[in-house]
């Protein structure tokens, strides 16, 4: 019973762990760069979650080859989550870029990226 449950859901559970790690980094870490790392891990968890949901046993990548008939849905894995995640990855990259730009601004003004120190210097 347990092994079945594990086999069917284990990837979700690893993804959940990944997301929690990301969230931990975002909330608990004091260094702003580490917060961003946490953010990225969190986003990666979500991306993996989508991709994992697209899988079909015994199916192939969603690129049509005449030898594998596309009349049978089971032959190709679901292309939609992959597409969505391509977009989400780009959004993540953009967010990361903006976050770094902000970090550089902060660092130039306060010469630190450690949050308590930063708050101290902002007074």
């Amino acid at each position, binding site marked *: 019973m347990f092994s079945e449950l594990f086999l069917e859901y284990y990837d979700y559970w690893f993804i959940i762990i990944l997301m929690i790690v990301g969230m931990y980094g975002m909330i608990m870490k004091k260094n702003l760069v580490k917060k961003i790392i946490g953010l990225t891990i969190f986003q990666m968890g979500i991306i993996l979650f989508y991709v994992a949901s697209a899988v079909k046993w015994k199916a192939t990548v969603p690129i049509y080859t005449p030898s594998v008939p596309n009349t049978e849905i089971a032959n190709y894995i679901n292309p939609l989550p992959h597409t*969505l995640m391509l977009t*989400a990855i780009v959004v993540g990259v953009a967010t990361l870029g903006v976050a770094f730009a902000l970090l550089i601004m902060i660092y130039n003004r306060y010469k630190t990226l450690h949050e308590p120190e930063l708050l101290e210097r902002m007074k």
Partner: protein
Amino acid sequence: MIIRNLPAIIPLLFLAAALLIPLINLLKKNSAFSIAVFVSLLASVVSGYGLYYVDTNETIRYSFGGWQPPIGIEYVYDRLAAFVALVINVISLIVITHSLKAVKEELSDREMPYYAITMLLLCGLNGIVLTGDIFNLYVFVEISSLAGYALIAVGEERSPFAAFRYLLIGTIGASLYLLGVGFLFIMTGTLNMINLAQILPSINETPTVIVAVTLMVSGIGIKTAIFPMHGWLPDSYTYAPSTTSALIAPIGTKVGAYVLFRLLFFIFGIDYFSRILPVGDLIAFFASAGIIFGSIMAIAQKELKRMLAYSSVAQIGYIALGIGLANPLGFIGAVLHVLNHAFMKACLFLIAANLRINEGHSDISKFDIKLGKKYPWTFAAFTIAALSMIGLPPMAGFFSKWYLVLATIDSKAWFYLGVILLSSLLNAVYFFRILERIYMKKYSSDEIKEEVVFAGNPNKYEGGLSLLIPVVLLAAGIIVLGLFNASIVSLINRMIS
């Protein structure tokens, strides 16, 4: 052709402007402002006509690429979307028109990217309002959020950190939303809102869907700054450049509220309020806590913009309360308050901007009668907006509160009734504090000399007509909206019928 493509045209107009501004800037410097004004004027006209068309005819459903939903992505231009889009575009038109001096003053050499990003922000917000696809919504949420972070980050010295916090929290919100979308997609296989509304009733009690709803609502709740997820808002609004505050405060969070309307009333359906999850009760509870918290914090502030920011937290609470009460009257109150609050907050933030440009500060403790004498029209507008915020008839603010009061009584939520009434009093406290200073605070003796200098006021028209006219227009708008709210309410009634 225009009519059929209306839903696409409105966001794409702004996108085109954002793309053209850097290109045209290569040929002709300082053209960004005029392009921005022109495009937002065009968008206001188009969305005004669109609202009229949609109201008299039927909802326009527009499928991109010619693919029918759910194969492709569709935009749904119904009365609610048209209404919110019109509010966004009109407010942005007024704020952008006002922005010329403020941007010159605060961001002297960054006008081009500033206006381009403003256009992107508006593109994102309009996209959020119009889209009929939950994943596409995420993309546009990210566009508008990124633009929002940047527009905030170019403000005062502390603004980058405020923007960074906003970015972290906002990205968490967007990611939670995305995760919720993922759960919903796995459970239903579709991303189209109308399809989801058809499919969900049969599976809405499974744990996954419940969690998905929770995640999506809380993700959007962060974007909307519903208490207790408002933490990013006060700093961001305070340290942002004046134009940004005036632009984001009235419409940014309202769009979040709009998404909540869409999700809760149109997709998840009323079932979630009453039977499965106490979403409505939770939202209403947090909203009322936010109303009280925001009002009290606003009283404690010494800086006008910061006070207005906390007041925004409270006012968002009203909208959320209207959503949480989940009855038609609450819906009317919430939608009406989206409109009214957009006008009031835009007016107040523009006044704060004017003060910063003309006086160099917006510090309440320095307000005195001299200021009131020097800027009579500005402060007349301020008075109107303040009275409206307090909820005194016949200003617009009264009527949205009136419907919220009716809604609380209709669902016998006496506690929330008390909250609304109490918050009106708190609003009165912090606005009359300013009004008293402006109209009665005497000069201290050493300032009398300064008064002589001000006698020959070099600022004709209180700092220039370009600063004054938008403020006065918005104040007039508040009164007009108050008097003609019956037609707006009947329009809102048609949205839910």
